[in-house]
C-alpha cells in the first residue's frame, strides 16, 4: 500500500497529510510534484489544502490544469482513491471529479476554528470505521467553503447518499448557526457516485493528535486504509 500527496505551487497542508499518513496511519507516502504524470505507484492520492496558484481566478481553478491532474482523472476513473481536503476539495470540483462548486463564505470571513460535523453515510470507503450520526470535531480554515450546486445535482447527491459530512451543533443538529460558511444543506463533504473520490472542507489531517485538540480525523484515514487493503 502506498499513498501519494500531490504538491501544487501554493499547497500548504501537504506536510500535515504526509505526517499523518506516515506516523499515524503507518503507511509509505510520497510527495508527488504537480508536474509528475505517473501515479502507478499509488493506491490513493491526497489532494491537500492550501492556496494552489495563489487562489488566482477562483480557488482551485488553475490547479486543474496542472499536468498531474490528467493522471488524477485516469486514476479516479480506474477506481483508485482520490481524497481532497479544503483546497483539494475545491480543485476536485473545478476539475469536474466532484459535482458543484465552492464559493466565497456567506459572511465573507475567513473562518478558522474547530467545527462539529456529522457523519451522514458510514458505509463508504472513507467512513467505514465511523457510524452514521457520529459527530466529529475537525478544524476548518477557509474563505471559500460555501458549497453550491443546482437542484438537480442536490437531488442526485441525496438519492445516492453522496453527502458524507454535514456541519452540525454539539447535539448533531444541522442548524443554520452550525453552518460556518452558508453551504447548501450544511454540506461539509461529498463523494462521487462511485464513492472513490471524496472532498471535504474540514481538515481531518489536523485532527489526528490529542495534543492538537482532537483525534477524530484518524478514523477517516483508517477507513481509507482498510478500503485499500480490501481492494488488494
Amino acid at each position: 500500500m502506498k499513498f501519494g500527496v500531490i504538491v501544487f505551487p501554493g499547497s500548504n497542508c501537504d506536510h500535515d497529510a504526509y505526517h499523518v499518513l506516515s506516523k499515524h496511519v503507518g503507511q509509505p507516502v510520497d510527495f508527488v510534484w504537480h508536474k509528475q504524470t505517473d501515479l502507478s505507484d499509488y493506491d490513493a492520492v491526497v489532494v491537500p489544502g492550501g492556496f494552489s496558484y495563489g487562489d488566482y481566478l477562483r480557488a482551485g481553478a488553475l490547479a486543474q490544469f496542472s499536468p498531474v491532474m490528467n493522471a488524477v482523472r485516469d486514476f479516479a476513473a480506474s477506481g483508485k482513491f482520490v481524497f481532497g481536503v479544503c483546497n483539494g476539495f475545491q480543485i476536485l470540483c473545478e476539475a469536474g471529479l466532484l459535482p458543484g462548486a465552492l464559493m466565497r463564505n456567506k459572511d465573507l470571513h475567513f473562518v478558522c476554528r474547530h467545527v462539529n460535523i456529522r457523519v451522514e453515510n458510514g458505509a463508504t470507503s472513507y467512513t467505514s470505521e465511523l457510524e452514521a450520526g457520529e459527530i466529529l470535531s475537525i478544524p476548518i480554515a477557509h474563505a471559500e467553503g460555501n458549497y453550491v450546486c443546482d437542484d438537480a445535482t442536490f437531488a442526485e447527491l441525496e438519492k445516492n447518499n453522496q453527502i458524507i459530512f454535514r456541519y452540525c451543533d454539539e447535539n448533531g443538529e444541522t442548524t443554520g448557526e452550525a453552518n460556518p460558511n452558508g453551504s447548501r444543506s450544511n454540506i461539509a463533504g461529498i463523494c462521487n457516485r462511485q464513492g472513490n473520490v471524496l472532498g471535504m472542507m474540514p481538515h481531518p489531517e489536523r485532527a489526528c493528535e490529542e495534543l492538537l485538540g482532537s483525534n477524530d480525523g484518524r478514523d477517516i484515514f483508517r477507513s481509507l486504509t482498510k478500503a485499500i487493503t480490501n481492494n488488494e
Partner: protein
Amino acid sequence: MKAKVYVTLKPSVLDPQGKAIHHSVELLGYENIRDVRQGKYFEIALDTDLSETDARQAAENIAKNVLANPVIEDYRVEIV
C-alpha cells in the same frame, strides 16, 4: 485584435461580495440601488492575422474552459 470576456455569476447564485459592496454603496448615501453583482473582466490580446470568427472561437473556448466555472458562472465575449 482583442477579446473582451465578461464573467458573471448566474442569476440563481447568491453573491455575498456583491451584497457587501451594495451595503457600502448605501452607506455612502446612494439611494435607489436595488442590487450589486460582482463579476470579472478579462482582456485577451490575439494575433492580428486571426479572422474575427477564429478569434471569437478561441476566446469562447478560453472563457468556457478556463475563465468561467459553468457550475456557477455565465460568460460573454466581445471581439474588438
